[in-house]
C-alpha cells in the first residue's frame, strides 16, 4: 500500500484551526482523540439539530406531543393487565401500574434515544457528505432531543404518584444522576450502533429486535428483587437495570436499596460510552465515503 509510506512521514492529525493557525489535513490511522474541545465549539449546531428534531417530530400528526405519553402509558396498561392482574407479578409492595410506569418512563427515553441515535448518521447522510462538523454531534443531538418526551411522560408519572398517594422521599434528589445514567447508556449503545449502521445496514433491523428483548431483560414488568444475590447485583451488567431500580427507589421508596446494582450499571454504561465514542471516532473517517 503506497499510502503507508506517505502516512509515516506525516503524523496523523487533523487539528481544528482557529484564526492564524495552520491546520493539517492528512490521513489518520488507528485510534484518534475524541476532540471534545471541538465538540464544544460546535455546541450551537448541537442545539439547532436538537431543536429541529423536537420541532419536527410531531409536525403533521393529529395527536402531536401526546405521542410522547401514549407509548409508555399504553405499555403500562398492557403490563398492568397481563403481568399485574393476570400474572399476579410481585411489585415490591407498590401498586403495579405505578411500579411499571416508573420504570417505563426512563426506559422509553433510553429505547427511543437508542433507536434515534442508531439511525441518526444514516438519516443525516445529506449533511455528512456535504459539510464538515464533528460527527459526534449527530447521535448526541438525537438522544438529547428525547429529553422533551421524557419530561412530558415524567409529568404524567408525577400525576400518577399523586393519584396513588405516593410521596417521594429525599432520595428524589438522586433522580438527575439516574437520568444521566440512562442518558449515558442510551448514547453509549447509540454510538456503537450508529457507527456500525453506516457500514452495515443490518443494524437497522437489529435495533428493533434488540430493544424488544432488552425491554424484557430489564426489570420493568417485574422487580429485580425476584433474583437472589449475587445474581441481583450482577443484573446491573444491564445498565438499564440500575436505572430502573434506581428510579423506583428514588421516587416510590421501594426498600430494596439498589446501590450495588447502580454501581455495576454505572461502570458498564461508562465503559460502553467511552469505547463507543472511540469506536465512533475511529470509523468516522470513512462515514462520508460509505454512508
Amino acid at each position, binding site marked *: 500500500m503506497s499510502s503507508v509510506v506517505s502516512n509515516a512521514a506525516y503524523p496523523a492529525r487533523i487539528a481544528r484551526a482557529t484564526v492564524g493557525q495552520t491546520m*493539517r489535513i492528512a490521513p489518520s490511522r488507528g485510534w484518534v482523540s475524541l476532540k471534545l474541545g471541538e465538540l464544544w465549539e460546535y455546541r450551537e449546531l448541537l442545539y439547532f439539530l436538537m431543536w429541529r428534531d423536537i420541532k419536527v417530530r410531531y409536525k403533521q400528526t393529529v395527536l402531536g406531543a401526546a405521542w410522547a405519553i401514549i407509548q409508555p402509558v399504553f405499555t403500562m396498561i398492557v403490563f398492568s393487565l397481563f403481568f399485574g392482574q393476570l400474572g399476579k407479578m410481585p411489585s415490591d409492595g407498590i401498586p403495579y401500574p405505578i411500579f411499571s410506569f416508573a420504570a417505563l418512563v426512563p426506559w422509553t427515553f433510553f429505547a427511543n434515544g437508542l433507536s434515534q441515535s442508531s439511525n441518526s448518521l444514516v438519516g443525516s447522510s445529506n449533511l455528512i457528505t456535504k459539510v464538515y462538523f464533528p460527527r459526534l454531534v449527530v447521535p448526541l443531538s438525537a438522544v438529547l432531543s428525547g429529553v422533551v418526551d421524557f419530561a412530558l411522560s415524567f409529568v404524567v408519572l408525577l400525576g400518577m404518584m399523586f393519584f396513588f398517594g405516593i410521596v417521594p422521599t429525599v432520595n428524589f434528589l438522586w433522580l438527575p444522576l439516574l437520568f444521566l445514567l440512562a442518558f449515558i447508556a442510551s448514547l453509549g449503545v447509540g454510538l456503537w450502533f450508529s457507527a456500525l449502521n453506516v457500514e452495515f445496514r443490518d443494524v437497522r433491523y437489529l435495533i428493533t429486535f434488540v430493544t424488544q428483548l432488552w425491554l424484557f431483560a430489564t426489570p420493568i414488568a417485574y422487580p429485580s428483587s425476584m433474583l437472589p444475590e449475587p445474581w441481583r447485583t450482577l443484573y446491573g451488567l444491564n445498565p438499564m437495570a440500575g436505572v430502573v431500580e434506581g428510579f423506583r427507589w428514588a421516587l416510590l421508596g421501594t426498600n430494596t436499596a439498589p446501590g450495588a446494582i447502580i454501581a455495576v450499571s454505572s461502570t458498564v454504561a461508562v465503559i460502553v460510552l467511552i469505547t463507543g465514542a472511540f469506536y465512533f471516532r475511529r470509523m468516522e473517517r470513512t462515514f462520508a465515503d460509505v454512508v
Partner: protein
Amino acid sequence: MSETIISVHNLGKRYRIGAQQPLYYRTLRDQLNDKALAPFRIARHLLVRNGKNSDNGNGNGHRSVNGNHTRASRRAETIWALKDVSFDVSRGEVIGVVGRNGAGKSTLLKILSRITEPTQGYADITGRIASLLEVGTGFHPELTGRENIFLNGSILGMRRAEIQRKFDEIVEFAEIEKFIDTAVKYYSSGMYTRLAFSVAAHLEPEILLVDEVLAVGDAAFQKKCLGKMGDVAREGRTVLFVSHNMAAVQRLCAHSLWIEEGRIKAYGNTNAIVDDYLSTSTATAPADRWVNLDHANRVGSGGVRFKALKYSVPDAETDTAMSSEPLEVSLEVTSDCDRTVGSVAMTICDHHGTRLINADTLSFGKSVRLTEGSNNLRLTLDKLHLNPGTYMLGLWIADPIAGPFDYIDAACRIEVCKPPQNGIGQTPDDEGLIPCSFHLTAG
C-alpha cells in the same frame, strides 16, 4: 508578496469501486467472514512474507500481492479519484477549478473541507474554512424560512449571533420577505434555491470552497449570485471555485486549476487554461466566444473541416443561450478547394444524448458554396425551443453523395437559461418537455 494559505502536497484519495454500486454496504456477514478468516490470513502472510518482499514501495495502481487472495482482488477494485495533487494558493486568490465530471474536483473540495479524509498526502490550511458543496444543506421542509435560515446557517458554521445580525440581509437578498414564516415545503423551487443560496452567500470565512452551486435559479438570480461571489473575492477572501460555467470562472478567477482524471493537468492563468479546456469540448462554452474545434472528436473524410464556432443571442448581452429566444451560431469552416456542399447541419442533444434538434440545410434543397481556405457561415435558429439546462451542440458538413466531410457530435456544450421576466413569473414545477410562447385573452 503574499502568504500561502492553502498548501497541498501529493494529495490522493482512493475509493473502492464497489462503494459506488447500488448495494454498496457490506453486510455484517461479510465482515464476520473476513474477521473469522483473519488468523489464517495472518499466518499465511507470515509464511509467504520471506518469499515475496518485492514491490511495496510505490504500489499505486498495481496491486501488491501479500497473502490472501480476496484482499488482493479487493484492492484491485479501487480507483484513485485524486492522485499526486500538489498546489499552493496565496491569501486573497480566487482559483477556478475546472475539469470534466468525475475528474476529481469535488473530491478535492471534500478533502479540503474535511468531509472526507485523504488516502495519502496532506494539505495545510491557514484560517477559518467553509465549504459550499450544495445549497440548502440540512434544510428541513417542515420548518419555516426563518427557522431554516438559523438551522442552515449553523450547519454551515455560522454562530447564532452572526446569523441574527445578518438575518435581514439574508432575507432581503433572497427576496422572500413575505414567505419568511411559511414552511419551505410550500416554496417554489426558485424561492427555495434563492433562500438557500442567500444563507450561504453570507458566510464570512477566510477560505471558501464552492462547488457548482451557482448553476441554480433563473438567469437574473444567477447574475446576482455571481455578483455576490465577486464581492467575496474583492473582500480579500480566498476562494476555490468549481464550475462548469467558463464565463463565470473567467470573470471571477485570475488563476485556475485544471484537473483531469484525478491529476492536475494545468495550473495557472485562467484565460489560457479555459482556452485549452474548451478545446477539449467537454465544458460549457460561454456565448460570444470562439471555441476552437481543432482537438474535437470527429469523423469524416476531412476535405472540409470546422475550425471554430461561436454562439450568441442576437440583440442580447448574455453568457448563455436563452430559452425561446433566437440562437445564432457562427462557424469557421476551412475547405481544401472551391466546392459546394449539400448539407450543413447543427444538432442539439440533451444530456441523455437524445437528439432534439437537427437543423440541416439539406431540407432547403440548396447547396452551400465554399471557397478554398477559410469560410464563415452563420446558422440562426429563429427561436430556441429548449427548456433551461445544458445541451450539446454537434456539427455536420457533408455531401449527399460523397458522404460526410466532417462530423463532430460533441462540438461544445451550451447552457440555456430562462430569459429575464418582467413581473413575477414563476416556473411551474412540472415543466413541459418543450417551451412554447402563448398568450391568454378574454372571450
